[in-house]
Every structure is written in structure tokens, then in C-alpha cells.
């Protein structure tokens, strides 16, 4: 579904990603973890070209996303992206947030988009907030709306960039349970997250990144019980030390 081959990314003199080669299969849930500044967010942001890469190739659904002539907007709408800071549109109601892209990008009718929005909001448990505005919602609710908004384009892949890091602890659960139900429905997902419980329970594979390199790819159980790489060991024992 997503193939990274020899991806390199630089911020000026600083190399953020080094020769990243990896694959996410269809229907797979991959959790990317690692210390902050290790390039996790940068890596998933390259998938819909929110970050441009210096060299290498990324294929999504068999399509080279850097192919000349490919229209960025066309493939972006096929990749759902959920941000750490939600980034809902504050001037639009919850329903309008969900309907915007289907109407303006896919050209669907407003009625059709609205019906779909109702169904999606129901799926994330927020049907009763359809007419509210983002600033009237809690962080957890906003993030669930953001997931519904991303789902509205029916993307085959969903990317989550630290979706619970900006939330108060008591709101983390509601967002994770929406993500779990997505995973259960067979959605291909890549999640950058510090939620190790989620990684252990839901993911098919864990990628451990440090300093722009994927150091270890492992099944979650193996990763948490018997990490291969010295630095993943250190990372995990640091987590447990708290």
C-alpha cells in the first residue's frame, strides 16, 4: 500500500530521514514510535507530500507520488491525514467541516455529502454535535471530528500524526477507541503515537525510529518483550522508568 524506498530528507544541514526503506501492506496497522525528533512525523508527512523529500521514492497504492504530471491534489484526497492539533476549520460547523472536501474536491452534491457526514459523525459518536462549532467541543471531540473529516473522502489509507498528544489524559481513550474500530474494519493505518498500549493491542507491526532511521521493524509483542536493537531497548526501558 505504501512503499518507501531509500527516502532521504534534509532540513538544511540536518538530515531528517536517512535511506528509509519500508512497506506498509494493505489492511495493516503500523505504529511508528521513537524519541522526539527521530523523524516519525516527518516520515508520515512525506506520504502526502506535506514534506518534500530530497531523494528516493514513495509509492502509494502502486502510484509513484513524485511522478511528473501527477496532480498532488488527486492523490492527497486518497490519503486521510489526522493532525496532532486537529486543525478543524473554526469558521465551519462540524458537519460543514466533514462536508467541505467531498463537495469542493469530489464535486458531490451537498445533500449527499451531508448524509454521509451524518453517518460518519455517528460512527465517531458525535451525531449530536453535528451543528456545533469546533471551539464548542472538547479536544477529544475535535479530534474525532477530524477523523470523520478525513474519512469523508473514503481514503484507503489513514495517517495519524500523534493524534492524542495534544489531549488531556481523560480524552485519549475516546480517540483511541475510534482508531481501534477503524483498524478492526480493515483500514490501512500508519500511526505515529506514544500510546504503547494502543501499539501493543491494535498494531500489526511496530517501527522504531531514531535519528531519521528505522532501526527496528517487529511484531508488537516481540518488540515490547524482546526488542532487537540496543536503542529500542533503551527507549522502552526509559518509558518504563517513569
Amino acid at each position, binding site marked *: 500500500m505504501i512503499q518507501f524506498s531509500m527516502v532521504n530528507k534534509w532540513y538544511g544541514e540536518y538530515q531528517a530521514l536517512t535511506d528509509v526503506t519500508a512497506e506498509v501492506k494493505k489492511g495493516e496497522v503500523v505504529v511508528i514510535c521513537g524519541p522526539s525528533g527521530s523523524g516519525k512525523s516527518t516520515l508520515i508527512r512525506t506520504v502526502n507530500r506535506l514534506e518534500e523529500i530530497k531523494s528516493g521514492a514513495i509509492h502509494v497504492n502502486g502510484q509513484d507520488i513524485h511522478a511528473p504530471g501527477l496532480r498532488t491534489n488527486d492523490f492527497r484526497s486518497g490519503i486521510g491525514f489526522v493532525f496532532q492539533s486537529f486543525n478543524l*476549520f*473554526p469558521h465551519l460547523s462540524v458537519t460543514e467541516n466533514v462536508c467541505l*472536501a467531498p463537495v469542493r474536491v469530489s464535486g458531490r452534491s451537498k445533500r449527499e455529502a451531508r448524509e454521509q457526514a451524518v453517518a460518519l459523525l455517528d460512527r465517531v459518536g458525535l451525531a449530536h454535535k453535528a451543528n456545533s462549532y469546533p471551539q464548542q467541543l472538547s479536544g477529544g471531540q475535535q479530534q474525532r471530528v*477530524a477523523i470523520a473529516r478525513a474519512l469523508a473522502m473514503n481514503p484507503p489509507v489513514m495517517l495519524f500524526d500523534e493524534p492524542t498528544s495534544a*489531549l488531556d489524559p481523560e480524552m485519549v481513550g475516546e480517540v483511541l477507541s475510534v482508531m481501534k474500530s477503524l483498524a478492526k474494519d480493515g483500514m490501512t493505518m500508519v500511526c505515529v503515537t506514544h500510546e*504503547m498500549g*494502543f501499539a501493543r493491542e491494535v498494531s500489526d507491526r511496530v517501527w522504531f525510529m531514531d535519528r531519521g532511521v528505522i532501526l527496528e521493524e517487529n511484531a508488537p509483542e516481540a518488540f515490547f518483550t524482546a526488542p532487537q536493537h540496543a536503542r529500542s531497548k533503551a527507549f522502552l526501558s526509559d518509558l*518504563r522508568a517513569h
Partner: protein
Amino acid sequence: MLDIIQDNWLLLLVGQYPKGPLGGLALTLILSVMGLVLSFPISIGIALCRTSPIRFLYASSTVLVYIVRGVPLVMFVFWGYFLVPVLVGHSVTAFTTLICTLIVYESAYLSEVVRAGIQALPKGQVEASRALGMGYWKTMLWVIMPQALYDMVPSIISQFVSIIKETSIGYVISVQELTFSANQVNNNLLTRPFPVFLILAITYFLVCFVLTQCAQHLERTITRKRTPKITQLRSIANDSVLDGQ
């Protein structure tokens, strides 16, 4: 002073109208509204260039804005008044000259207001929109501009106040706006310039003061509406690492 108002209020309000051309405060307001409305779309265009990643658009719009902001308005009035007729080959009315001048001048100033409005929005708004597959124009039209323009309303009203005062420069090319009318009154009375120009000042002040108050009221309303519930947004929440373990 009251007797001056009593005798001349109509002249100050509408000039010679209906026997002659419209003037006075009415013309001042018409000039100001036209100046604002006509320069607004141009200012959006300039602001888009000023925020553009395309070097040529950015550079040329920046040069334009800096030149206009670095030259006094009355220079533009003179250039328009003396140069434009030479260029187009026939005479141009003072009214048209002043409107065109105001458009050029205000487009540059307003574009800075619009640019500030665009750049004040969080970067995440553009990213969220682009990630949904919306291109540059759709993002501008449906996500950025509605928010930016709404936030800008108080600044635009302040700019409108500036335009009202700027129209008084029309006096030097005999546009019959408020200042011109007051000067006519002064010429009729000959001996009482002080009360006449005090009336003029008070009139400008009242109009501008009311508008400034409106702007402040709107600004408070907008700030109240836009303030997010910060308590729910934690900047970094590494504590949540252990949740679920």
C-alpha cells in the same frame, strides 16, 4: 458658530446639489466608500502575491507596496492630475483622478492588512485543507479567506477611517468634498475662519469617532468568538506515553 451651521448646513452636507454637482459630506462619504470597495479586490490580489512562494510575484508586489507606502498621497494626486491626461490624451475629471489615486494608494495599504490576516492564521489550517486534496485556490477561497476576512473587519474599518480623512486632499484639485465646501463657506463669510474650520474638524471627528468605536466593538466580539478553549490544548503531552501500559 451655530448660525454658521444654520446658514450653511446644506452646503456642508451635499454641496451645490440639487442645483449643482453633489458635494460636501455626501461626496466625501461616496469617495471613501468607492475608494474602499474598489481597492479591496485589488488589495486581495496584491496580498496573495505578497504571500506567494513564486519569487517574481512576491518581489514585484513587495516593490509596489513599498513605493506606494513611501510616497505621500498628495504626490499621487499631482501625478494623476497632471500625468494621466497626457497619457490618455484627454482631460480627466478631478473626481476620477481622486478615485483612481485613492484606489492605487489604498490597495497598497489594504493589501498589508489582508496579508497580515492571512499570515496570522495557524499554518495547520492550510495543511489540513491541502491534506484533504484542496488546491491553492480552493484552500484560499473556502478555508483561508473566510477566516482572514472576518478577522480583518476591524482593521478594514480603521482603514476606512483613514480613507475618509484622505479624501480631504481632493481639495487641492477642486473635488467638491467636505473640505472644499467648508472653504466655500469660509470664502463667503471672509472673517470667521476659526469657527468654520472648527465645524469642519468636528464633522470629520464625529464621523471617524463613530466608526472607530464600531471597529473596537467588533474587535472585542471577534476576539471573544475566536478564543479557543486553551485548557484543552496541551502543548506537549509526553505524560500520556505511559497511558495504557
